[in-house]
């Protein structure tokens, strides 16, 4: 408690400025106050292990899937309290709390672009289009950590087939909700909002590509991309768009958000590839959450069945 309080001490108490600050020394004083404030923030972070467990509604009638791995699953609490979800915060420990107030019902998804007829679908109608499956997938983040998650959903191609894309549809683009009121991270332009991701049509049609609305047998928690997201286990995590409000079929390759942010570091494909490093760090190994030693990263995250999608492509260039 003593530590927590320290961040509440006003900087003016640490450096009693009236007593000694003259105008020409103001700047130096500001620097000291800044140092004190930063110390306070770091201390508060140290003393803050907030852990809550949420009980979401069970999903009925879940089928097993042959795509599932039998590797040990990451605990629910880790998957729901360690989230790269910049719409809420750039701190992975914060979305669990900040996403609490996201309203996921009513929720509609607009389907447009190169389709015969534009659709506006309710999320509950989408989740009922096919029977839910449990897909236990490896999930590899571009930052070098990985988890194993039992997602619930069905192959994205079930939805795409119902959307009647035209022959001009070469790509699918996913857009995340834009609502800075509900998503406080969007009040800061660390990325260009709304978040946009995309796939080539044949990638999206691959049965591994999952349209996901649950995990661990329950409805997705908000911080994991509720109410509707995609999961693309052979790609780095950022490709798997969350809280989707729009699915657009396009002729041109979508310009995904991370590529816009740093084109030299994040490409369109973002396939998990131990042989192609991120410019700033190696991708050869990963830390599976809960394990002490790093394990080698596998090509396509171990999902070799997608390799045909990229035959003849230079994956060093198409990173």
């Amino acid at each position, binding site marked *: 408690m003593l530590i927590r309080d320290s961040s509440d001490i006003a900087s003016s108490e640490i450096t009693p400025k009236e007593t000694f600050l003259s105008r020409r020394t103001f700047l130096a004083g500001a*620097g000291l106050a800044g140092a004190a404030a930063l110390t306070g923030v*770091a201390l508060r972070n140290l003393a803050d*292990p907030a852990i809550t467990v949420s009980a979401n509604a069970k999903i009925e009638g879940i089928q097993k899937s042959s795509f599932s791995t039998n590797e040990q699953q990451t605990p629910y609490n880790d*998957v729901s309290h360690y989230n790269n979800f910049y719409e809420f915060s750039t701190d992975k*420990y914060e979305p669990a709390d900040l996403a609490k107030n996201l309203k996921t019902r009513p929720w509609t998804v607009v389907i447009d672009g190169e389709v015969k007829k534009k659709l506006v679908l309710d999320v509950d109608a989408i989740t009922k289009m096919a029977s839910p499956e449990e897909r236990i997938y490896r999930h590899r983040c571009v930052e070098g950590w990985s988890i194993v998650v039992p997602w619930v959903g069905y192959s994205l191609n079930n939805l795409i087939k119902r959307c009647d894309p035209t022959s001009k549809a070469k790509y699918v683009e996913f857009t995340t909700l834009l609502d800075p009121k509900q998503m406080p991270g969007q009040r800061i332009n660390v990325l260009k909002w709304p978040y946009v991701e995309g796939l080539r049509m044949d990638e999206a049609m691959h049965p591994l590509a999952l349209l996901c609305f649950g995990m661990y047998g329950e409805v997705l928690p908000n911080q994991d991309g509720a109410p509707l997201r995609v999961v693309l286990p052979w790609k780095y995590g950022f490709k798997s768009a969350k809280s989707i409000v729009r699915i657009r079929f396009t002729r041109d390759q979508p310009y995904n958000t991370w590529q816009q942010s740093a084109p030299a570091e994040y490409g369109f494909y973002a396939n998990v590839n131990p042989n192609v490093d991120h410019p*700033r760090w190696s991708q050869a190994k990963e830390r599976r959450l809960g394990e002490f030693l790093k394990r080698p990263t596998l090509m396509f995250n171990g999902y070799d069945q997608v390799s045909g999608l990229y035959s003849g492509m230079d994956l060093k260039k198409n990173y």
Partner: protein
Amino acid sequence: MNLRHAKIACFFAALIPPLLLGWRAIHGGLGANPIEVVTHSTGQWTIIFLLLTLSVTPLRRLARQYWLIGLRRMVGLFAFFYATLHFATYVWLDKFFDVHEIVKDIYKRPFITVGFAAFTLLVPLALSSTAWSIRKLGGKNWQRLHRLIYLSAILGVIHFIWLVKADKRQPCAYGFVLTVLLSYRVWMWFSTRKERQLAGPAPRPAGLGRI
């Protein structure tokens, strides 16, 4: 409160972060990725203690708390202590003593290169922190050597900025504080130089009138 008490208080306060970290580690409070938490935490405390070390001089002058100089060595050594923990975390928990990979990293990855340089620069400062070293080197030389902390802090902040993916607010905040603290030095240097000039050239020893 005399200096002795202040030093004792400072010593124990500076140990709170690793103790808390240890306490959280034992009680499973480090979250899903404890090694990442330890790495980031020790790195941040290194920068914080570097900035605190650099705050001593402006603070003692501006607040006329000249006794603060008595704390500077300890605060500086704690910066080195945290830097060592941070480096050890990298060598042990991240790379698991894979020397080949570490050397490759330092050579290949700019953010690791500057981070390693920032740490290396602190080593001679920590080694020469004793009163004996000051005597041996002489005050002037010792001071010159210890100006390496400016470079180390700058590289430390760059290390942080280059490692972040998109949200640079926090490293930039450290960068701002560092800029202010270094600007104070530049300003002091200029103003004392002006005073020196106003006072005229220093009196020359007799017999050196013309060369």
